[in-house]
């Protein structure tokens, strides 16, 4: 699995967990039950499990921001699993602010990579699964949970006709298992439906674009609004969900007074872009806002 496939795999699971391709690094939720309580980040690290303390400790050790400094003071409460944090609005606001910091995003990426993605890849390797889609299925089981329960119930890979057949069987079994649990867990069986669709479409290599649970994952969507230094800006085009970001705002600002400035590349923005491209001399023939349009707009 290469880096792009890894990003796609994580994006798929992000869609399942947050409805967003890149996840919601700022998401703060209070979960019910003794094992939950305050949860945070794109994959809902919980206070009750002790993992939230580990994540924040990693963040605070790397970040020198003011938010990190304030959260540092609350670290003992996270260590002690102080459930009064569930209702501490000040701390919850700090966590939301921290989610916008690249350092927190990096900390979360590293945390989830070490605690979930890497173990999932090892488990997949142990099970003989090498296809990126199969590895994504196993990663999803590590994020949502249940791999340890279901994997021992699976037959050996060589007895079911190979890797793809094994993954298909596992997806079926996992869907049945989710549906056997009490609500709201049966409602999450859509994850398996999404994987089944990808298998039916033979998307074993996670070739882009692909649509999961109504969300289309593209390279542009994966790159986000703030491309890494040195990398070219993403091409803006109409997709679902709409692309958003500062780069969209910049384009909207150049499209004239009729344009909105909400930073959403929706159908209205797309119409304005196409009108601009058509009215430009010479006309620009480009799908979305690519290098030519961007240059014509003076960006």
């Amino acid at each position: 699995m290469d880096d792009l496939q890894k990003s796609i795999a994580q994006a798929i699971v992000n869609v399942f967990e947050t409805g967003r391709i890149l996840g919601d690094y700022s998401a703060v939720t209070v979960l019910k039950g003794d094992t939950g309580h305050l949860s945070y980040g794109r994959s809902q690290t919980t206070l009750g499990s002790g993992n939230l303390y580990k994540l924040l400790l990693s963040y605070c050790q790397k970040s020198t921001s003011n938010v990190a400094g304030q959260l540092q003071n609350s670290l003992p409460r996270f260590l002690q699993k102080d459930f009064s944090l569930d209702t501490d609005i000040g701390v919850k606001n700090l966590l939301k602010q921290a989610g916008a910091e690249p350092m927190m995003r990096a900390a979360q990426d590293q945390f989830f990579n070490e605690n979930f993605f890497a173990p999932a890849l090892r488990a997949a390797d142990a099970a003989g699964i090498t296809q990126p889609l199969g590895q994504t299925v196993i990663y999803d089981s590590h994020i949502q949970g249940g791999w340890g329960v279901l994997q021992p119930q699976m037959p050996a890979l060589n007895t079911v006709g190979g890797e793809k057949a094994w993954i298909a069987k596992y997806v079926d079994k996992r869907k049945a298992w989710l549906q056997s649990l009490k609500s709201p867990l049966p409602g999450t069986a859509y994850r398996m439906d999404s994987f089944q669709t990808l298998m039916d479409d033979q998307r074993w290599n996670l070739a882009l674009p692909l649509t999961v649970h109504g969300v289309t994952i593209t390279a542009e969507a994966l790159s986000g609004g703030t491309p890494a230094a040195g990398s070219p800006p993403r091409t803006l085009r109409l997709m679902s969900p709409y692309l958003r970001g500062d780069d969209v705002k910049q384009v909207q600002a150049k499209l004239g007074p009729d344009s909105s400035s909400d930073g959403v590349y929706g159908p209205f923005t797309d119409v304005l872009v196409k009108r601009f491209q058509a009215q430009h001399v010479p006309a620009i023939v480009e799908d979305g806002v690519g290098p030519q349009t961007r240059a014509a707009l003076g960006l």
Partner: protein
Amino acid sequence: MTQFVWTFPTGSDRITELMGKCKLVFPLIAGLCVCLLQGAVLAAETNPLTFSPPQVSRGGSFQINLPKLKEGATPTFIHIYHDGQLVNPAPKADGFNVEVPADLPLGTYQVQVQAEKISYSGDIAVRPPGNGEIKLDPFDPAYTYETENIWIKPQDPKRPNTQSLTVALTLRGSGFVKDNPDDNTIWINGIRQNMKWGDYAAVCSDGAQQESGAVPSGPSGAVVSAEEIDLCHVTVPATRGLDVKAAYGDIEPAAGQKFTVYWMNTAIVAIIAFLITAALAGLIFLLLTLGKQTYKIAGEDYKWRLLFLDQQTDTYSLSKLQFYLWTLAAIFTYTYLYIGKVFVQGAGWPDIPGTLPGIVGIGAGTAIGSQVVTAANGAKGSGAEKPGFLDFITSGSVVAPDRIQMFLWTLFGVFAFCIGVLQKSPGIISGIQPVPDGMMYMMGLSSAGYLGGKMARKPGPVIMELTVTPGQSDDALAQGTSAAIDLPDFSQPSVVAASNLNSLPNVANANAQKAIDTFGSAIKAAAAVHTTSDVANLLTSLTSFQRDCESAAAGAATDFAAAPPKASSQEAAAAQQAAAFLQDFSADVTQAIAAAAAPAMEAASSAGSVARTIELRGSNLSTDGTFEIGHADLPFRMLVNQDGDNAPDAMARQDGGNFATVLRFTIDPAQLDATDLAQYQAWFGQDAKWLASLTNPDGQKADQSFSLPPETATPTQQGT
């Protein structure tokens, strides 16, 4: 040759005359007067006479000897009477020599002679040729239970038939007259029987048992030989005792032979004795059944079976079985004896035979000895969870020869003892035959062998309680936790979405308005979620709302791009924003649902990693034993004890050694390889009932079932 004529003697004429007068004058006193006068006259005028020979054969002759008779005197008359009737035709006489006709019935005849105006009288017996005597042998057997209820045809044909209980007899002896059966006279209980000799074959059949085959009253007989007479239809008297006599003629012998018709035979008495024994045993069973005492083994109530149960091991006890069998045999045989003596024979209450305490003592001694050995040496293995008949010959499910031999000897001894008693019919039984010394010795040796084997054998495992912690299956643990999960919290996304909705301007374009309305509908749909099942539906509807809203936004954009424009830029922008807001809202809802499901999923995921302990409580639980669940081994490699070793924990050791009273098996699924984990999940993954077995190194084992979840909150067995 003197010709006999029937004439009244002088005395008789006078009597007749007087009687006529008496009848006329004093009718009530006449009889008395006549009798007195007749007696006086006869006594005064009749002298005894003798005969030579004193008894005569039919066809022979006899000489009448008269005392003081002048020489040449002849009899005035010679009258011979039989049963008061003058014999007619009269036998021929030559002087005082009388010839007996060949067809004269046997019997005693009164001879009256008058000579020289003096009357003489005497009795002479007419016997069969040869002057033999009937000799009746004692009956063998002198009793019977077989009677026949026959229909009797009355002499008056106008009267209805009656029934009579009769019996058939076989008389054995000597001197029976076959050629002329009427010569054989039968008396029963002093009554001369009116025998019918010619119709035996026709009458003495089963036909008389039907009313259509009714026969005349009185017995029928057939002289089989001089040594045997068969009788049928002999009426059974109320006393059921028959005093049977046989002789020639009409002189009833002084002594007869006794015969008894019993109203109960061996089978009936045995059945009654059995029923009484069963009733006594049933009384015990009834008390146990009606009583509040209950004992449960693996959920099954044990009441009357408690009698045979060794509650220490929950197995059937051989020593108790032996004790009860011998006790019942003693009761049965004594009841048989009692009924025979008291009700059949009419004798007194029989004393307890000396042999009974001995056989009951063997059973009691074995039972007590068994308890002593168990207390000293430890209990046998409990074997299967529920007691079964195999317990009588096994110890901890291992076949024990010492138990087999005692089991067999007990069954044989009881059977032989009862059969031996029944060999004596209730009519003649006088006591219970003692068990032969050799047999008593053998049974004692058998019990000693049983106790010796019990003492030599190692104690076996007994599981009184088995507890699995946690008691729920992995699935139940997962579901039990998820059941506590509340609905996803959509409040925050809904507040944000409502705010966004309010921020949108009023529009006139239909597509823009549709996009905004669809966004509003999605918010309402989320607010309408009241049950966990609504959550899954919301996910589906949100996808639909999102698709419709994006389509409407695209339509508004198209309207904006149309020439002339059908929508303003504000309207197209508002539609785009509505679709974008709905995408955000849908993502927030998805995230909220995922967040709400996280604790349930964590529980469900961790259920399979919960370490389980199986704790056995009982006795003689070997730490080196083999433990099975559902007939599959639980290998030591799957265990982890408190020291971190792959072995069970002896939580409470029993008198040192390798036995424990509390034995704990701990399984940590996180440390199992795939194969063992699969076995672990097969055992504990789903709700199920399993049979667990602990087998000690010597092969004795104990079974105990358990279920996930536990069937009751109480231990698997209890006494209340």
